[in-house]
Every structure is written in structure tokens, then in C-alpha cells.
């Protein structure tokens, strides 16, 4: 059996058996040396295309999943997803497309202040995570999306957000224009962002930010 076929078999077995998506590096570390994981993945993706189970890349890791058009059959496996309110979805979209983004920036885009619970829900569902702090007065916390978000929506990376490139080209993701509006830059790590201070994730004043009285 050729090495190529054998590498495909091994990657196939590992991904089938895995409880979660695996990166090419994860896979390579499990394979005997000298096998080309990238080619095996490409081969498998082609082989499974159009089948009942397909290979997909999410959050830069690989997984098998059932074909979307067969979702209707999965009556027993289906978990009724927690319904996100319109506000929560819009907030999630703003965070996804503008990250890292501060609470004030989210509110500026929507024209309304974040109601209590909106961000909490997204954090609790692990779609959204704290990314860091903006290097501006008050050093506000910035938010971004998690791998779980990408996995849930089946996105290989943030660059694959639907319509992101068109929006970016139209300047719609660039909140710095016009001068009167604060506009964050969605792509990559913002230059004016500090990493979170140690312990920020559970600092009391931070928790206050979500659950405190001032939550608007």
C-alpha cells in the first residue's frame, strides 16, 4: 500500500475517533514520521465530498461531520440550540466582525446600550471570550470570539466570516471613518490592545461590569 493511501487511512482513523477537531500538527504528532498530513487531509476532503459525512476545517482544525443537507434526519441527536435573542446575535456578529471590540464600541454600532444578560449569555455559551484591554483611557476590556464559535458555525477561521471581505472593502468594518465614530479594526490583533492583566477574567470589578447595577 502506498504511503499516501496509508497516511489517509491513519488521518481518517484519528479524526473519526477523535472527540473534537484536530489540527494538522496534532495529527502529525500522532502519525509515524515521514507521512504528509496536508496531502492526506486534502485527499480525504476530496474523497468525502458529497458523502453523508464530510471533512471540514473549523478554527484551523479538522473534523468529520454529517452533511448539512441531512440534518433533518438527526432527530435524536439534535440539541435544540439555546435560542439567542436578536440582540445577542447582533452583538455576537459585531464582536466576530470587529474583534477585538470593547463594550462601548458594540453599543456604538447598535445605537443602544447592551442590555443585561446579552454579553453574559455569549460568554456563558463560550462563543465570546475576553481578549485583552484597549490601550485607551480606562483600559476597557476587549472581546473576541472563541474557537467554539468557529466550530459552532463551521468556520475555518475569522477570515471565512460570511461577507467579511466585502464589508471590509466597503469600509463597513472600519469604525474609524468618519472621524466622528469610533471604529475598531476587526482583523488580527489590534495594536493598541494590551493582553489581559493576570486575574482579569475573574476580577471582581470585571464581574461587576456584567452583573452590576450599571449594566445598561
Amino acid at each position, binding site marked *: 500500500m502506498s504511503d499516501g493511501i496509508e497516511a489517509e487511512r491513519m488521518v481518517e482513523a*484519528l479524526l*473519526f*475517533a*477523535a*472527540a*473534537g477537531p484536530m489540527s494538522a500538527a496534532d495529527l502529525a504528532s500522532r502519525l509515524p514520521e515521514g507521512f504528509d498530513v496536508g496531502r492526506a487531509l486534502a485527499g480525504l476532503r476530496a474523497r468525502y465530498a458529497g458523502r453523508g459525512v464530510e471533512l471540514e476545517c473549523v478554527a484551523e482544525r479538522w*473534523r*468529520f*461531520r*454529517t*452533511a*448539512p443537507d441531512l*440534518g433533518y434526519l*438527526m432527530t435524536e*441527536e*439534535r*440539541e*435544540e*440550540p439555546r435560542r439567542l435573542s*436578536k*440582540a445577542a*446575535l*447582533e452583538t*455576537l*456578529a*459585531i464582536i*466576530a*466582525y470587529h474583534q477585538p471590540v470593547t463594550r462601548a464600541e458594540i*453599543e*456604538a*454600532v*447598535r*445605537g*443602544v*446600550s447592551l*442590555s*443585561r444578560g446579552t454579553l453574559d449569555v455569549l460568554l456563558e455559551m463560550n462563543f465570546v471570550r475576553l481578549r485583552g484591554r484597549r490601550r485607551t483611557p480606562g483600559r476597557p476590556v476587549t472581546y473576541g470570539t472563541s474557537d467554539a464559535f468557529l*466550530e*459552532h*458555525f*463551521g*468556520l475555518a477561521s475569522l477570515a471565512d*466570516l*460570511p*461577507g*467579511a471581505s466585502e*464589508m471590509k472593502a*466597503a469600509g*463597513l*468594518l472600519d*469604525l474609524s*471613518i*468618519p*472621524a*466622528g*465614530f*469610533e471604529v475598531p479594526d476587526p482583523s488580527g490583533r489590534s495594536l493598541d490592545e494590551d493582553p489581559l492583566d493576570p486575574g482579569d477574567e475573574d476580577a471582581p470589578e470585571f464581574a461587576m461590569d456584567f452583573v452590576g447595577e450599571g449594566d*445598561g
Partner: protein
Amino acid sequence: MSDAFQPSLDFEAVGDAVADGEALVVDIDGYEGPLHVLLALARTQKVDLLKLSITKLAEQYLAFVQEARRRRFSLAADYLVMASWLAYLKSRLLLPRPERKTGDEPPAEEMAAALAFRLAKLEAMRRAVEGLTSRPRLKRDVFTRGDPEALVVIPSTRIEASLYELMQAYVTQRKKEGERRYKPTVPVVYPLDDARERLRGMAPRLTGWTTLDSIAPPVRGEQGPTRASYLASTLSAGLELVKEGALEARQLEHFHDLFLRSRRGFELEAEAEGA
């Protein structure tokens, strides 16, 4: 932040509303805030949001607020703030162009463009929501392996035992059982009495040395005594007759044929010689 547009005013208004304990989320007929209402109204113009007639939009919005107030007791403050700001913007847009400079205020057109841009941004996010939610979603439309093996490939309860081992265990026991329970069918023997009787009758005729093989009766059929049994019983009877003095036996060498002959024959011979 633009002094003229002062979007923060909206939020301050909301903040005040919160402080006053008023309803936080303004959701009039499904709208979350003035911007969402404006977006919905702007869409009715069916043009690129950036080419929107802000004057027309302002009129639409004011009409909306008026209608809302007619039907409801109150509107959240930010709706009203937006209404007054739009009324102001509209009036400025309608004024003749060479207008007097009012402080740092940007031209009305710029303010209008800024509003249009804000709406376009919100619209983009609404499209983003549609784009995201129309994607196949995990555990609703697409499903990963229901029974992954990686962490349970071989759970601790897993027993190492192959089918071969099972077969082996079975056969070993059955073999042992076979040996243990092996009961050979009791062979039909040539009774010693019969052999003695027969040999006694034959003895007088055994005048010369005769092999045991030819003396023992031949095997008859499957059911009868075996050849070995005939031989053994005949030998045994023969030895008895030897003891009685009726026969004598000899074997020239170990494992060679055994010969029997009548003692009487010998006596007769001797008598004959003596006579």
C-alpha cells in the same frame, strides 16, 4: 466624537432612563432602538444606504415617532433625542448652502453621511447575523461523531480477551473433560473357564509342539472377544494345565512363539518307549 451628531447623547439618555428605573430595552413593535427603526425605514427607500435621502428618512422617522406616541403613553428618551436631532439635521439640510459656521459643527451633509454610514454599518451586521445563522450549525444541522473513540478507545473496563483465547479456553477444557470422562467400553473377554474347557478337550490331541497362536480360537466378528483376549485366556488356561500336569510349554527365546503340547502325549510317548 462629533459634537454635532453627539451619538453619546443617545446613550446618556438611556443611562438617565436606567437611572430613573425606566424600561431599558426599547422595543417598539420589534425595534430595539432608534437606529434599528431608522434602518427599517431606510430600507423602504430601496436605495443604497449611502445614497439615502436623509431628509426623507428624517420625515419618515418623525412620522413614526408621532404615530408611536399617539398609540403609546411614552417612548424611551433616546427615540425622542433622535427625533429632535433628526428634525434639527433636516432643517439644516434644507437651509440654503452658504450657511453660517456654527462653532466646530461639521457641515450638515457630513452629518447626514455619518448617519447613513452608521446605518450601513448596522445593516452590515444584520447581514452578518443572517449569514451566520444561515450557516449549518453544529448539533442542529451538522453533527460530529456521536460515539467518538479517542477518549474511550479502550476504557478501563475494557477486557483484553480475543476470540482465539476464548476458543482455546473452550477446547482445553473439553479435552480435559474428555480425558476425565473417558470410559472405555468394557471389552468382551474370552472367559478363562471357556479357555480351560476348550484346552482340556484339545490337550490329548496336542501331541506335537503347537504354537499358542494356532491353539487360540480365531476371532469371530466385531462383537466377540479380541484376538488379544483369546490369546491371553488361552495362555492363562494353558499355564493352568501345565501346572496340573496335562500340558507342557516352552519358549525358545524371549518374545518368541510359545509352544504347548500334551503331557499325556509325552507320557504316552514315554510309555511307548518304555514298553
